[in-house]
Structures are given as structure tokens and as C-alpha cells.
């Protein structure tokens, strides 16, 4: 296990380094002068020169790339062109909002999707199964931003409950949570559908397997068979895609943060693109990548924990 962990951590590190390299190169491969790109066509000569020096743009490219990566590895992502604040500080401010949003949606997706799937699988082809299947397929097909607009209309505008935009303050957890409900639901909805379908399919497969028949032949209660024996096997494939789903959720968060006006990583990145603010863009993309690889690592490890067969295979090699 320790060896596996080491291997996986090594791979994670390699991915992070690749992302860093990509981010370092990006400003240089975009046609034109990166500084002009950054500052736009109306910048003065003096300003351009100043930024050139600040960015070390006159150094050889390899040195630039190297120093960006070296600094980044030491936790220095440069400063915001516009405000001159350290990028890391901005990230630290934005990160909690995005993390809260992503995990709240993931939690919703799991908490709603898995029971939905199990419910559908207990009586295949029943009315209940048909109903859940229609609901989950429609959930999958609705894009999160459409759902977001719909939710905005429904709750704050028509019903007058729940705040429409902003995040509330972290120091007031209750208000923060109230602000989180709508964006998290909008983002989660697709994944509720996915998990429901996936769990239903794997549940049906497991229920048809030999060991479930054996459990019945030894008089185990249906409840125990379903929720203890079958479910543990049936959630394994879902856990495997948790990591991927978190990545998708982070991507989707960009829209949602924009719509609900939440100052998270997505909004930070979007604003940075509009302003050609490379250091901020680099920083936020790096952050998203870090979240993504961490999520995948955690999913992989929990997968191993759930499925003893994989656990021992690793022990043997």
C-alpha cells in the first residue's frame, strides 16, 4: 500500500509539473508580444517597457520558464498586474468558495443519486423504476447554467426564498449555506442523474450475481442482501468516477460562479482572461488542476479501500 501510495504521489507530481510547464509556456506561444497581449493595444511604450522588466521578459525564454516553475514550486505565483497583490493571496481568498461549491454539489449528487439508483434497481421495470429513469435522464440532459437560471427564477424571484447571488460571509455559516443551496443544486443536477443511472446498472448486475443467490439460499434478509451485500459491490464503479466528476464540477463551476456572482476560482479565471492578466490566470488554472489531481488520487485510494481484490494485488507486486 505504501508503495502504491508512493507511486501514485509520484504520478500526481508529474502531472502537476506538466501543468506548470504548460502554463509557463502559454504566454510565449500566443502570437505577438506577450506584454502587448497583456496590456492591450492602447498601452504606452513606457508602460510596456516597465512590464517587460517586471516580467523578466527580456531574459531567454528557457530561463523565464525555469524561473516561473521554480517560483511556483516555492509557492510564489507572481503578482496581479492590475492590483499588484500576490496571486497566492487572491487564490486563497477564492479557493474556499469554489471548494465549498464543488463538494456541496458532489455531496448532493452522491446523496441523491445513489439512493435513487438503488431504489430503481430494487424493482426493475416497475413504475418506480420507469419514473426514476425518466427523471435521471432528464437531469443528465439539462445543462447546469439552464438549471441555474430556472432555479433563480423559481426560488428567489417567484417564491421569494433563498438569496439570489453572492456568497454570504464565511463567519455566518447559516447564511453562507443558504447562499450555497441554489448554485450547488444547479451544478449537482447532472451528476445526480449520472449516479442514479450508474448505480442502478451496477446494482442490477450485482443482484444477479452468484453470491447474492447464495446469500438468499442461506436465509439472509432481503434488506441485508440489498443494502449491505449488494450495495458495497455496486458503488465501486461510482467511486471510480468520483474523481472525474469532481473535475467536471470544477469546470462547471465557472458558469455557476458567474451566474450567481460568487467570487470563486472560476470567476477569478474568467476575469483574468478578460483582462489578459496572465499571473492570475496561471494561478487559478494551476489551482483547479491541483484540486483535480487530488480528487482523483483520493477517489483511487478509496476505490482500493472498497475493493479488497485490488488492495491485495498491489501488495503482491
Amino acid at each position, binding site marked *: 500500500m505504501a*508503495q502504491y501510495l*508512493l*507511486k501514485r504521489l*509520484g504520478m500526481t507530481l508529474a502531472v502537476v509539473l506538466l501543468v506548470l510547464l504548460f502554463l509557463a509556456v502559454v504566454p510565449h506561444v500566443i502570437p505577438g508580444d506577450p506584454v502587448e497581449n497583456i496590456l492591450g493595444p492602447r498601452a504606452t511604450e513606457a508602460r510596456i517597457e516597465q512590464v517587460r522588466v517586471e516580467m523578466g521578459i527580456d531574459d531567454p525564454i528557457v530561463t523565464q520558464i525555469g524561473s516561473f516553475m521554480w517560483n511556483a514550486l516555492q509557492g510564489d505565483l507572481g503578482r496581479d498586474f492590475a492590483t499588484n497583490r500576490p496571486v497566492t493571496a487572491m487564490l486563497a481568498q477564492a479557493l474556499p468558495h469554489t471548494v465549498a461549491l464543488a463538494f456541496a454539489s458532489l455531496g448532493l449528487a452522491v446523496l441523491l443519486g445513489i439512493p435513487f439508483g438503488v431504489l430503481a434497481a430494487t424493482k426493475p421495470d416497475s413504475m418506480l423504476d420507469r419514473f426514476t429513469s425518466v427523471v435521471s435522464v432528464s437531469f443528465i440532459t439539462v445543462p447546469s447554467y439552464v438549471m441555474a437560471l430556472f432555479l433563480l427564477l423559481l426560488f428567489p424571484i417567484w417564491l421569494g426564498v433563498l438569496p439570489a447571488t453572492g456568497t454570504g460571509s464565511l463567519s455566518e455559516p447559516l447564511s453562507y449555506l443558504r447562499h450555497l443551496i441554489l448554485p450547488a443544486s444547479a451544478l449537482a443536477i447532472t451528476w445526480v442523474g449520472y449516479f442514479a443511472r450508474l448505480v442502478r446498472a451496477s446494482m442490477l448486475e450485482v443482484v444477479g*450475481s*452468484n*453470491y447474492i*443467490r*447464495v*446469500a*438468499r*439460499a*442461506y*436465509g*439472509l*434478509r432481503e434488506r*441485508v442482501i440489498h443494502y449491505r*451485500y449488494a450495495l*458495497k*459491490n455496486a458503488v*465501486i464503479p461510482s467511486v471510480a468516477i468520483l474523481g472525474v466528476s469532481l473535475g467536471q464540477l470544477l469546470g462547471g463551476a465557472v458558469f455557476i460562479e458567474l451566474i450567481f456572482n460568487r467570487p470563486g476560482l472560476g470567476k477569478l479565471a474568467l476575469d483574468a482572461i478578460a483582462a489578459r492578466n496572465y499571473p492570475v490566470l496561471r494561478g487559478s488554472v494551476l489551482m483547479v488542476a491541483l484540486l483535480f489531481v487530488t480528487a482523483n488520487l483520493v477517489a483511487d485510494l478509496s476505490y482500493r479501500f*472498497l*475493493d*479488497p*481484490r485490488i488492495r*491485495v*494485488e498491489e*501488495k*503482491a*507486486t
Partner: protein
Amino acid sequence: MSDRVLVVEDLDVTYHVRSGSLPALRGVSFELRRGEILGIVGESGCGKSTLSAAMLRLLPANGEISGGTILLGNRDVRTMSQRELREMRGRDIAMIFQDPLTSLNPTFKVGSQLIAAMQAHPDVDASDTGKLRQRAIEMLTTVGLPDAHERIDYFPHQFSGGMRQRIMIAMALLLKPELLIADEATSALDVTLQAQILELFRELRRERNTSMLFISHDIGVISEICYRLVVMYAGRAVEQGTVREVLSKPRHPYTQALLASVPSKDRRGERLATIPGRVPSLSELPPGCDFSDRCRHVQPVCREPGGLHDVHTAGHMVRCLIHDPASTYETSGIEREGDRVVVGRPEAAPEDRPRAIGDVLVQARDLEVHFADRPTLASRLMRRQLGAVRAVDGVDLDIRRGEIVGLVGESGSGKTTLGRAILGLERPTGGQVSFDGQDLTAMNPRQLLQLRRRMQMIFQDAHASLSPRRRVGQLLTEPYTIHRIPDEERIAVPELLEMVQLAPEQATKYPHELSGGQARRVNIARALALRPEFIVADEPSAGLDVSAAASVLELMKDLASELGLTYLIVTHDLNLVGYIADRIALMYLGTLVAVGPTPQVYERPMHPYTRSLLDAVSTPDPDQTTAPHKLLLPGEIPSPKNPPPGCRFHTRCRYARIDSCLEVPELDHTANGHLVACHLWREIVEDPAAAERAASPELISDQQEPIS
């Protein structure tokens, strides 16, 4: 009364499907006494598994017990409530299923599964898990699991198939059920493991007086362990009686044909009986006798509905008009024995045509196939020694032109890898293989492709080796496309089909429309398409019903003499090679331990492994029934990653001695071309008892490494 554990009377089971109702069981009656083992035998589709599921009322959702009674003691299983059923399952009737690999939940430790099975029953104190755990450990020890106190916390995949079946048996015994149902419980196991499990069943019957319903397609196994048996056909019991009676004087034509289609060494040179056609589908049962369409004694009266009923004479039941004195069946042309009609064996077929055996065609010298663990970054960093699986580890084998050689071994012996390596499908890591004087190991892929026209393989899983989206006709011409054979050199599809006795219409079918036997024939036709000289057949009869297997074997024999083919038949089935092979090569952990002409090896087995294997074989012989195996092999085949030093067999050999068996034995010439790799063969042949007394018992290890 209390003597009868189970009484099944007139049992009907119906499956409801979209097109109507299918009668899966019709009027099945039998009874089981305390301490008795009753065998249920029949081909697939005859209702054996439906029967066992009906006993526990575990039929699939569309199945229904539509008539009759199942009396368990004095309670009727049919009228039990769901709650009573649940309490009955596992406590009164416990079931052991066919596939030990999938019978245990992979994500729970075996101990927790055993304990859960006990806790499911109200008469067990569910809270005292310590005590339940102790009970589980004791039971695991009883069924022969070493170190049970430790291994109870293992996951199922850490056990071999044989061990998992023992765990299943332990689970079945935990609640001291009155009745065990073993549904093909030994079918997935190797002969030596099968012999061990059968021995365990026999012990349970002796010591606990457990009654058993033993369901199997293998009439050999049934005859070995059961006292009475029921023969099933198309959902009906067609013959019932003591094993001795039924095997020595089978009365139903189906039973006779079934018995006559089992290959064994005693039938060498004879032709096996093949039953034409297939078990009728439940939706198209013929009127009158279900077997009438396949019976060689059929008369018009057999096809009339209504005339047939069970005929009982002195404890022997048969459902056939020939034996019914009240019927109008014309028995005048049929032999009689006293007042009883004897139908006789199926038609005596002509003897085998002699085959000419020529010079050496295939030669393996010191052949070695090792599969190395792929080195990982981590293993390189830690500079760990990598283990290799020594699948084939120094094999010398000659196969002569026209010869049928049987390569036999337990699973894990490396026999399939050897077969593949001989065809160049597996790159040897050492030694060489030559075909007709040309060294395969020195060839480049193009040369190998050229040569492969002359040697073909028939793979084990007939259905899986046919592409599901191609029709049979396309599948048969595929080899020509691969080898770019011009049209004029091709054999036409109808002709190929005819060679394997399939009708030309089959060319338009897809593989899933074929029966197991037909799929196997298509595979044979594919192999024959290129007019090869040499064919490696991997388990040619595996997964087939007895009669289908018999006809495939007959076909292979005929093709061998017609086309002058040379075969290497890779199998674990000793009855099969005993019947068909000219010579047999016995493999154990990557090495050959004995090679010789089949009659010599079977009549005078010299290697201790050969002796044990042959002892473990079950054949349907009425005089050999219930004789315990004397040379039972302990344990299981060790891991080929880490074979024992010296003679690889010494960890399971009853004759092994410390002074000699830690040296590697060479294949030694005994008499009549029988080669044996054993230091002690002379002494063992001369006086086995003395050789056994001289053994060093400390060499035998009962410890089995978990497979991981």
C-alpha cells in the same frame, strides 16, 4: 416416517414467459432417506438446476411451482410463508453451488459471511459474535482449511477455487442442516480436488449422517458417491434406482445412450454412442415420449400422447413404453432376460480405422516459457528481485506424424502455455520448438505466419473464440483472408461444414444461434480450412454435454484418420485422453513427469503423480462405486512463481524422501517407451507399501499459500 428427510411428489415447475408457459419440471417424484446421497443426473436443459432451486423455493421471478408437494420432514415447502422459508434456508436445507469463484461476496471477509449466514436465523444468538466466530473457525477446520483461525479474516480472492468450495461447504454445514444440496459442486474443480471434496462429502455422510441431493451432469461422479440416482430428461425423471442397478442394467434408452457416450480408457478403439439431435426445447416438446425424436428404438406408439407412465419394478422406476407390459409397443424383436426386456446398448459401431504413425513432426527441446512480472518504476527504485511465473520450465516432447498425443495436467500445470508455445503463439524464453525440421524459435513473424498454415489451434471456449458479429460462412473464410489464399485453393464453405457434419444452412447463422457442440464444430472447421497437418486442441470437450462431447471426439478421430492429422490434445480430463490418445504426456508445474503410450501409462502407472491422478478419476463403473480413493493427493498444486526445489512434486508425494527427492529428477526410460521423472519409480512399482514406509513425512506440506 422420520426416516424420510425429503419427499418430492409429482412436482411441476412452470416458467412464465412472454410467449406462454414452459413446463420446466413435470411430475418429478423421489424421496431421500436420512444419511442417503441421491444423485440427479442429466444433460443441460433437463431441469436439474430448476429442481434444486425449487427445493428452496428460490426459482427466478417468472418460475412457479405449479403442482405437487415438497415435504421436508412433515412440512410442505410449497405452503411456507416467506418468513418460514427464510428460516428454513440454510438451517434445514443448505445448498452448495457450482462455481466456488463467484459464490462468495468479494468485498467481505469470509468470516463475516459465515457469521452473517448464522445470524440470519432466529435460533442463533446473533449478539454473541465471539462464539459464532469460534463456531465458524471450527467448521472451517472440519472441512480441511489449514490455519482457519487466521484465514477466517481473509477475503475470498485470497483462496484458491478448491479452498473456496471448502468454505462454501463449511457455510452449508454451520447450521447442521438435515439436507445438503450440491448443485454441480465439484464440476469446476480439477480431478484431484474433486476427489478431495467427494471424500469430504463421504466423510460427512458417515460421521453426521447428512442426507444429500447430489446434482451433476457427470455420471461418473454420481456413480462414485451416490447410492441411488434419478436420471432426468426434458424436465422429467425417466429412470430411477440404485446406482448399481441403473449402471449395470440401464433400461431407459436415454440412460443407455448417456452411459455409452462417456469416454474412458476401457473403451479405446470402440466408438462412443452419440445421441442425434438435442434435448427438445421446452416450448416444442414432442407429443408422447420426450425422447422419441432421438431414440433408436422409437415406434409409432411412442409418439402418441397419453400412453406413458412411470413403470415401477422392485424399486427401479423407468418411464418408457418398452418396459410397460400394458403398452402396445412391439417388443418381439427385442432381447429378453427372464421376463424383462433388455434394450441393449446402442448400435455397435465399426472399430476405429487404423492410423499410420510416421516420423517426428513436432519437437520441443528444453522448452521454457517464463512470464516475468513487468518491472515497475517503484520496483526498479527499490531494486527488488522480480519473480517470474515458470509456466513451462524445460520440456522435451516429440510428436510423430499421425499421432494423437494427450497433454494432461491440473489447472496451473502450464499445459495450455506449452500448447501455445509449440504453435509459436507464445514466445519461448528458452529452448526450441521445431516443426517438420524447421526451428520456430529462430523465425521472424512473417515466416511464422507462413508456417502457421500447417498448424492450427482449436481454442477452449468455442463461443468466445468466434466473433459474435460474423456469420458462420464469414468466420470460415476468415483464415483464407488472413493468409491471402487464392480462390482456387480454398475449400468451399458447404464442403467445410460437411467435413464437420454441419448442415450447409448453418453458414448463415451467427455464433449465438449455435449450440455448444455446433460452435465447437465451427471452430474445428476453421482450423481445418487451411488444410493443416497439426492441430492443438485445448480442452475440446469442455463445457459440452456428454453426448455432444462424444460426437465431437468421434469427429476428431475420423478427421485424424481421413486427413492424416496430428493432434496435441490439451486437457485435464483423463477419461478423454485415456480414450483417444495414442500417447500421453503428464505435466506438473511446468515440467513433464511422465510420457508414454496410453495403455502402458494407464495399466502400469509409475510416477506417483500419475498413480494419484488415475486413482482420482471417476468412471461410471457399477462395481467401483463408493470405493474411497486410496491415493488422494494432499493440498493443491503450488504456485509456479515459486516451485518447490528438486522434484517439484515432492510436497504432495507420499513417497518423497529427503535424501533423494530434493534433486531434480530426469525423465528416465522404463519399459515400453514409458518415460518417468521420478527417483523412486523402481521401488514404487515393486512395492508401493514399502516405498511409502520409507518416505520422509516432513516433506509433505499441507500448507497452501494463498493465491495472490
